[in-house]
Every structure is written in C-alpha cells, then in structure tokens.
C-alpha cells in the first residue's frame, strides 16, 4: 500500500520527515528474505530512528523493544523507520547500499531532499521510480480539517483518528499533557511504525499555540 505517501504539511515542516520502507518482491526475492530484512533493520536501528517497526510485528511507538521487532520479522514484512534529519538519512542509505542485500528500499520525503540524500549516499542522482502524490478528490468536506490532517496523515493506514488527535490537542492547550507526550500517545495507534513522533510533537505544539 501507499501508507507513507500523502503526508501533508508545508515544505518547511516536511524537512524533518524521511521514512524508509524495506520489503521483498513476491515472485522475485520475497521467499526466504526475512534474514536479509532483519539485517537491514539491524543497520537501520543502529542510527536511532524516531520510530521503527513492521505491521505484523509492532513498533517502537507501541513500546516494542528493537530486538523483538527485528527477530519477529517474517518474509511478508513491510518494515519501516522514520528519521527526523537528513544527515542521518544519508548515513542510513549509505549503510544499506554498502550492505548490498538486494532488497528494495523506498524513502518518502521531499523530492529535492531525497535526491540530495541519494547523491550524498552514493546511490545515484535520482530515484528508480517515484509515486507522485496528487492530493485527494471527492467529498473533501468529509475529511478532517487541514490542521488535523497534518498529524493524522502521518499514519497512512489511518489508525490515528481525528477524534483522538483533537482530544490530545485540547489536553495540550489545557496544560494536561506536553506535545511530546501527546505525540507518543498517538504513535501507539500507528501499527506499522511510520509515524514521526518528533514531527508530530512540533506540529501539535504549533497548533496548540494558534
């Protein structure tokens, strides 16, 4: 699926949001790929992602230890990790390239920034393929507000509801929780680990100050 696509926000607010996804290709290299996925996750985890996980296993946001996530990954996994700075993303991609395990890697993020990450990591000047986000159509009035979607679209499976996001925002405004505590609470609902808690905390803080 396209669970790391369609994240909303300004260019400025997306500059600290890079999500790596690794997965095997059915009929090509999926069968028996779990050991390679685990090795890649070991590499990724050594760079301290703000979140990391796999749908069928769990993620850091839900309190699962890194070792347990890695050990439980199966051939079917779509594993992901979120990073909040470009320099680390460069190091991660360079390390994955050097490991040369033959598993596909995608990075969701600002196109210009990702191209720079690729160049710095020695992977090439531009991606192999890109899924362009062209926004959404239809009964737009049924979707959550523009502000709320800044947070909820960071979980592409939409496990983070409009209701709990707005409730957390109110708690921050009332002084009953901090933006980071609220972001961590929200990240528990994201089953795969693509939710960027650092970016979420920054957005919640800004929205609470409005």
């Amino acid at each position, binding site marked *: 699926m*396209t669970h790391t696509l*369609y994240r909303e926000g300004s260019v400025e607010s997306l500059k600290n949001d890079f999500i790596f996804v690794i997965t095997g290709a059915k009929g090509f290299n999926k069968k028996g790929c779990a050991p390679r996925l685990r090795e890649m996750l070991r590499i990724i985890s050594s760079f301290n992602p703000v979140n990391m996980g796999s749908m069928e296993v769990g993620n850091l946001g839900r309190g699962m230890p890194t070792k347990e996530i890695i050990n439980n990954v199966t051939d079917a996994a*779509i594993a992901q990790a979120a990073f909040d700075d470009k320099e680390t993303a460069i190091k991660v991609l360079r390390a994955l390239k050097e490991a040369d395990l033959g598993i596909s890697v995608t990075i969701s993020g600002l196109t210009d920034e990702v191209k720079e990450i690729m160049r710095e990591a020695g992977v090439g000047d531009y991606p192999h393929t890109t*899924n*362009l986000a*062209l926004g959404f159509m239809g*009964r737009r009035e049924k979707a959550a507000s523009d502000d709320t*979607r800044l947070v909820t679209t960071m979980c592409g*499976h939409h496990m983070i509801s409009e209701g709990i996001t707005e409730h957390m925002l109110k708690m921050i405004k009332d002084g009953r929780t901090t933006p980071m505590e609220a972001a961590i609470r929200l990240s528990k609902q994201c089953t795969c680990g693509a939710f960027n808690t650092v970016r979420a905390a920054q957005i919640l803080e800004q929205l609470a100050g409005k």
Partner: protein
Amino acid sequence: MVKDLCVACGKCALYCPVKAITVDEAAFVDQEKCVECGTCIRAECPVDALRQPDLKPPRLIRKLFSDPLATFAETEVPGRGTEEMKTNDVTNNVDFGEAGWGIELGRPGVSTSFTDVEKVAMALAEHCVEFLDLNPVSMLIDHGTGKFTENNPWKSSPSDIRRLRSLSAILEFKTTKEKVPEIIQTLKEVSGEIDTVFSVGLISRWKDGELELLPLVEEIPGVEARPNSKHNMGIGRPGSG
C-alpha cells in the same frame, strides 16, 4: 462489545477513525459504519470490554481492507495488501512510457463504501486500464468492466460486496503515459458521483534525471504534484522466491 463490562468512559469512541462508536450507558458499535479496523481494541480499554469475533466472509473483507495487521494470503502483503511501487526496481511493473496508478478510496480518513469502489472501477474500466493482478480490489472485480464478480477468493456475491465498507481500498492499474490526462479527467468527473474521497498516486519512472510523467501532470489545470512523494532507491534485485 461486552456491555456488562463497559464503564462508558468513551475512550474507544475517541479512537475510532470512522466514528462508529457512540456512548450512552454503554458504548455501542454501529455495525454498518464499523470497518473492523481493530483500532478500538488497541485503544487500551480500561476494562477490556472490546472483542472482535471470529469474522467470516463477507464481513471478514472489511477487516482485510481496514486492519493493517491483517495479511492478504493471496498477495502475502499486510497493510492494504499491495506492494505498489516499493519493489518496482525488482519487478519493473511500471516501465518507461507507462503510468502506474494507485487510487485509494476513503483516504484520508473518511472510509468508503464498496458501492463507491465499484463506481470508480467501472469509470476507469471504460478507458481500458490494466488492473494489476496482485491487488485485493483487483481480485473482487471483473477487469473488463470494473464490476464486482463472485469469482473472488472469498466467494462473496457482488450484492454482499456492495454492502461492505472499509477504511480504504486501493485501485491499482496501469495505462500508457499518453492516457494520463484522460484518466485524471475521468477521476475528476467520477469524484462528483461518490460519497467519499480518494487520494491519487501516479507512479512514474525517471528518465535522464527527469520524472517522466511530471510534465504531463503540470499541464493539467487544477492538479498539482505535492513536493513530497515516495521514491524507490533502485538498490533491490531479483533473487529466488
């Protein structure tokens, strides 16, 4: 929902992404709205009053399309059951001169009826798009007409399928790159006939440092590519399996 246990705290209602839960003396789950995504069960109910029964088709299809923890046996992919372009460096599903499409009904966060899924699929089928085989929606529809067929892995009838809802459902297909403007026009038209939203993803190869389909998109009024997208690094390769 175990009514005797429920303390009507309302926590599950806050977490429900489709607003299917209301709370009076106890929480009540509207089974028509509920998409079986499992979010309420993972919301840490203080008295463990929420349970998901052992689901059978067609109800099970709601879960398969809504709960990221459910894996489609046929595609071997959890989430919404598709590899999309994540592995395109290995599969080359979308080649030069081609456009890959991912139309995700219900997203962001609105949910969708399967009547609307069929409506959009039928509109696209009129343009002879090539629906991808390894996709859960493709397994429910006739690829020539876009209509639901009972020839599906769950042996559910088209009328039963039309009564379903899910958090989202992704139509994946390919066209030639020349068809990009007409497909977008079709999407604009059908978007006025449905009771939900859909997100539009357009998969393109890069050629000589340029995203092959971007110039075509830029010529279409009212459509804008976001500055952030998903990018395949090109470091995968075929192996066994």
